[in-house]
């Protein structure tokens, strides 16, 4: 049995193509039914997110090539072979295993290290279990996939540094205010950037959100989304001192927050710091404010430089992530190889048990042992002797099953029956 993956992602297909190939949740049951009806497919899993659509199939090694997988998908899922061929990538065996490990770890994501993909892969594997695509191979694979992804996240800094401007702004504010629950934010403007920043702030547990905008209705709408309050644009200079974090993104041609406003706000705050984030072009906040004690002013270029530095940092961490992926794919191979020995061990054990039972029967007949207690004691002796004899060879068999053909017959005997 081997794993194969055929898929497309943000690198191989545009959003229009990805949209066409995307699989809706309500169609999953039917899709799994069709794929699993093909005699060549033992197990299957479909991953469909906004940035990728991937079909994982477990099949015989002889069918594990692109033409067979394309044939399976075009026959049963009504997908156009030519189009599939044009936009998809194909991996099989060890490469396919490494691929799913890397995807779940965020190493193949558009935003390197983004955490959502972990949940998406987990839920795809659960759907496969629910709709009959799951079996022993995928069960083991899902266990190793989740382990790898968790290890990559824990032991590398791949998801530590924010790589979007609005998220970077929120993360920076945490370097001034330890507890955002005690802090208040003022959002100046009600555009898309402000909405994103507000979303990140609320997600980080900000204490309160106030929105101001030239059109009060828009401010009220945005504030309503986050359980905040709206104030009129004329009112905000007076209320500036109440905010700890100020994010501004308006279309105003000049400064909306001047240095004097900052000075007067600081005078009312009894030395509590203020963090101004200007994500507007042209700028909304007077950069001279940075000279005021306890005032920190960051503009879009500052944030972009943070984002760029963080991206580089993530790329460095991704290398460590790939090392983990390779190590875990080795472990997975070993595990699968060792599983091949399980039927042999079962057969061997049952033949030893059978021999034990026969010898016990012969002994009882010959010596006229009829007392059930006596027979039970003798049976216990036979079983425990067999357990003792077979423990070492069985352990060694499991342990060395993944070694391939690197041992001679003498080594095998030594390894299985003699080595302790």
């Amino acid at each position, binding site marked *: 049995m081997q794993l194969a993956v055929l898929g497309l992602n943000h690198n191989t297909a545009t959003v229009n193509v990805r949209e066409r190939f995307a699989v809706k949740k309500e169609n999953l049951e039917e899709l799994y039914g069709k794929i699993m009806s093909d005699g060549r497919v033992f197990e299957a899993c479909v991953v469909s997110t906004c940035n990728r659509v991937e079909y994982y199939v477990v099949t015989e090694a002889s069918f594990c090539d692109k033409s067979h997988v394309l044939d399976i998908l075009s026959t049963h899922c009504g997908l156009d072979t030519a189009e599939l061929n044009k936009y998809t990538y194909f991996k099989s065996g060890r490469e396919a295993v490494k691929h799913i490990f890397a995807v779940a770890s965020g190493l193949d994501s558009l935003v390197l290290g983004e955490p959502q993909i972990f949940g998406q892969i987990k839920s795809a594997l659960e759907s496969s279990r629910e709709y009959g695509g799951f079996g022993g191979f995928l069960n083991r694979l899902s266990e190793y996939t989740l382990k790898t992804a968790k290890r990559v996240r824990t032991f590398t800094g791949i998801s530590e540094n924010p790589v979007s401007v609005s998220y970077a702004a929120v993360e920076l504010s945490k370097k*001034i205010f330890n507890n955002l629950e005690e802090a208040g934010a003022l959002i100046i403007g009600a555009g898309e950037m402000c909405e994103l920043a507000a979303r990140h702030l609320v997600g980080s547990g900000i204490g309160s959100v106030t929105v101001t905008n030239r059109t009060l209705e828009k401010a009220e709408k945005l504030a309503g989304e986050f359980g905040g309050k709206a104030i009129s644009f004329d009112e905000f200079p007076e209320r500036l001192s109440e905010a700890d974090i100020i994010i501004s993104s308006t279309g105003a041609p000049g400064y909306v927050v001047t240095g004097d406003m900052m000075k007067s706000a600081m005078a009312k705050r009894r030395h509590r710091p203020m963090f101004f984030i200007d994500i507007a072009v042209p700028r909304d906040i007077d950069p001279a404010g940075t000279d005021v004690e306890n005032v920190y002013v*960051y503009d879009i270029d500052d944030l972009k430089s943070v984002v760029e*530095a963080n991206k580089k940092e993530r790329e460095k961490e991704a290398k460590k992530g790939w090392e983990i992926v390779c190590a875990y794919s080795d472990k997975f191979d070993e595990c699968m190889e060792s599983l091949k020995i399980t039927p042999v061990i079962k057969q061997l054990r049952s033949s030893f048990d059978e021999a034990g039972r026969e010898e016990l029967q012969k002994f009882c007949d010959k010596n006229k042992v009829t007392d059930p207690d006596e027979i039970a004691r003798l049976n216990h002796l036979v079983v425990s002797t067999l357990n003792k004899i077979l423990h070492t060879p069985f352990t060694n068999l499991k342990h060395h099953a993944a070694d391939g053909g690197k041992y001679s017959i003498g080594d095998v005997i030594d390894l299985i029956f003699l080595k302790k």
Partner: protein
Amino acid sequence: MISYLALMAYIIAFCHIAFFLVFGSRILKTLFNIFMGAGFVINITELVLSWYKTGYFPSSSLYDFMNIMSAAFVVTYFIIYAKYERPLIGLFISPFNVVFSAAAIVAPVSASYTFVDSIWRYGHLPFVILGTTFFIASFLSAVMYFIQERQLKGKKFGMVFQRFPPLDTINKINSTTLKLGFYFYTIGAVLGFAWMADGGFESLLASSKIIFSMVTWVVFAVIMGLKRWKGLSPRRMAFFTIAGFLCVLVTYIGVAVFLIR
């Protein structure tokens, strides 16, 4: 031998916290705490053994003083850590442990001065020493504040910026250590005066050491007063704390080493 063990523990602890600054791994933080704790246990064991052997609390030699200071720094660190869970203050505190432990090795073990044993001493000594170590921790957090403020204003987002605590946390550490240091030092000073009055050593009031101790107390009392009634910006408070630290230096090093008691 036991002093070397303490020194080793503190050096290893310092290495771990320095690596923590670079790599940020949790295990390094845990190991730092373990080695600081180990150094403390060694210091205390040494003091207890000495007390058991001689029959009086070991505080009359420079060697004893270095060991007590070293242990007090660990207590200070763990109190701050318990409240704020920010181990990086240890990056600045542990070098003091290394210096004091190394100094203990070369310091004379014999008594540097004679004293009259009294129950007051057991109250005076720990409070004054803890007060001092908290004042020093306050100074160290002021240094941390300036470093982090500089990173934020200068928009430098390197390793130090990433690992250092948020600015308001550093400011809180500064306030807390200053407050605790002042309370401990005040209690220690009061107990010291009570000891003087009880033993009839009023003549000591004119000694340089007592005068400079009082100057230190007054400086910190002024800082506390300004903070409470006038309100000091974190930056100013950090400056004042550094000024207070200079007084501590004059009291301990200047007076104890260069002036006659």
